[in-house]
C-alpha cells in the first residue's frame, strides 16, 4: 500500500493524531459550551409548567443561543474523532472491513442528532418576546426527543468499535479490553434514553437521575480513555513503522 503516497509518513501520522486530538477538543468544548455557557446543567425539567419553560429560555436567551452555537461547532469535531477511530479499526480489520464504516456512520449519527437538538433549543431562545409559552414547551420537548430517543446510532458506533478492538490479536492490544467493555457498558446504559417519552418525572424522565445524570456524564467521561488510548495506539503504530523501515 506504499505506492503513490505523496504525503510523508510523518505527515500522515500527524494528521491522524490531529483527528484523534479532536476528541479532547470536542469533549471539553461541548461540555463547557452546553453545560456552562448554555446553562443546560441542570436541564429544563420535563415536569415544568409552560411558564417555567418560558422563563428558562427568556431569562437565559443570550446564553442559550451562544451555548448552542458553540456546541454545534465542537460537536462537528466528534465526526473527525470518529474518522481517527475508523482509521485505527482498519489497521485491525483490513482495508475492506465493514465495521469501521459502521462505526463512522454511528459517529455521524451521534453528532447529527446533537446538532438537531441544539437548533430546537436555539430557536426557543430566539426572539423570545414574540413566542408563546406553549411554543417554548414544544421546541424544548422536540430538542430532548432528538437528543435522547435517537441513541441507537451511538449504540452501533460503540458496539462496532468494541468488537473490532476486542478481536485485536496482538499480545498487548491497541485498545485495552477494559476500555472495550466500558464502551459496551455505555451502549447498554444508552438504552434508558429511549424511555424518556413515557416519563414526566422520576429517574427515567429526561432530567432524571438515570436518563440525565448517569447517561450524560458517562458519555463525556467515556471519551477520555478512548481518546487517550487512541493517541497511544497511533504513537505505537508510528514507531512500529519507523522501526521496520529503518531495518530495511
Amino acid at each position, binding site marked *: *500500500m*506504499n505506492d503513490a*503516497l505523496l504525503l510523508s*509518513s510523518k505527515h*500522515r501520522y500527524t494528521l491522524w493524531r490531529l483527528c484523534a486530538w479532536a476528541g479532547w477538543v470536542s469533549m471539553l468544548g461541548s461540555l463547557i459550551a452546553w453545560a456552562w455557557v448554555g446553562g443546560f446543567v441542570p436541564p429544563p425539567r420535563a415536569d415544568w409548567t*409552560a411558564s417555567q419553560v418560558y422563563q428558562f429560555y427568556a431569562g437565559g436567551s443570550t446564553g442559550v443561543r451562544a451555548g448552542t452555537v458553540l456546541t454545534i461547532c465542537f460537536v462537528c469535531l466528534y465526526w473527525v474523532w470518529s474518522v481517527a477511530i475508523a482509521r485505527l479499526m482498519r*489497521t*485491525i*480489520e*483490513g*482495508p*475492506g*472491513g*465493514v*465495521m469501521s*464504516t*459502521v462505526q463512522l*456512520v*454511528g459517529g*455521524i*449519527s451521534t453528532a*447529527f*442528532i446533537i446538532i*438537531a437538538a441544539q437548533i430546537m433549543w436555539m430557536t426557543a431562545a430566539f426572539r423570545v418576546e414574540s413566542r408563546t409559552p*406553549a*411554543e417554548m*414547551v*414544544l421546541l424544548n*420537548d*422536540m430538542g430532548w*426527543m*432528538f437528543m435522547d*430517543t*435517537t441513541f*441507537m*446510532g451511538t*449504540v*452501533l458506533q460503540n458496539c462496532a468499535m468494541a468488537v*473490532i478492538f476486542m*478481536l*485485536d*490479536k*496482538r499480545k498487548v492490544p491497541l485498545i485495552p479490553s477494559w476500555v472495550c467493555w466500558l464502551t459496551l457498558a455505555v451502549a447498554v446504559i444508552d438504552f434508558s434514553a*429511549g*424511555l424518556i*417519552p*413515557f416519563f*414526566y418525572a422520576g429517574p427515567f424522565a429526561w432530567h432524571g437521575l438515570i436518563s440525565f445524570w448517569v447517561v450524560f456524564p458517562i458519555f463525556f467521561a467515556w471519551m477520555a480513555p478512548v481518546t487517550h488510548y487512541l493517541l497511544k495506539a497511533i504513537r505505537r*503504530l508510528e514507531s*512500529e*513503522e519507523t522501526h*521496520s*523501515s529503518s531495518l530495511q
Partner: protein
Amino acid sequence: MNMKHTNVAGQNDHLFWKLCAWAGPLYVVGSLIGWALVAGFVPPPRADWSADQVAQFFTDNSVRIRAGMVLTLLFQPLYVVWSVAIYRIMRTMEGKHGTLSMVQVLASVLNWAIIMIALVLWMTAAFRPEARSPQDIMLLCDLGWMVIDVPIMGTVLQYVALATAFLLDKRVKPLLPSWVCWLTYAVAVLYIADAIIPFFFSGPFSWHGLVSFWVVYSMYFVWMVPVSYYVLKAIDRLKSEGI
C-alpha cells in the same frame, strides 16, 4: 501505509459482512412492526384532516405512537448498516477509488436521517398532546410528512448509484440480476411522487394518497426483499471467489 494488519479478515470478515447484510431484512420487519403496527401509521393521518381531527389522532393514540416511534427508531440505523454491506460489494467491483459506492452509502445516511427526524417530530406530537393546541399538533404532523417525503432525492441517488454499478458488472452471471437493477431505476423514478406532496391535500399525490403513500411506501419495503436476497448471495459468491 505499510503496516501489517493483524487481520480480523478471514472468517470473521465475511461473518461481519453478512451480519451487516442481514440488517436489511431486520430493518424492514422492525420498521413495519414499530411504525405500521404499534404506532398505527397505516393508514396515515390524512392531509385533509382538520386541526381537531389531527389532534384527536395524536391524543387518542398517544402512548402507542410514542412506543411505536421509539421502537422504529431502534431499527433505523440498520438501514445504513445494510447499505455498508452493499458499499463493500460495490467496492469489490469498482475498486477502492470508486465513486458510486461512496455516493450510495452517503445517500443512505441521508435517507436514514430524514426518516429519523420525521419519527421524532411525530413522537413530539404525541408527547403531552393535552397540553398543546390542535394547531401545534397539526404543525408537528405536517413537518413530519414534509421531512420524510420531500427530501426523497437522497434515496433516489442511492438507488441510481446502486443500480448503475451493478449493471456495469461484467460477470457472465452478474451479482445483482439486471431485472433487480431495472426495478431499482423504476422505483427511483416512482419516488419523485413524494417530492410533490406540498401541493396536494387530497388525491393520489397527497401524502396519504394512492401514489405518494400506498405505492411508494409499499415499494420502499418490498424493494429491499430481492436486493437483500441477492446481496446475501453475492457475499457468499465473493467469498468463494476468494475476495
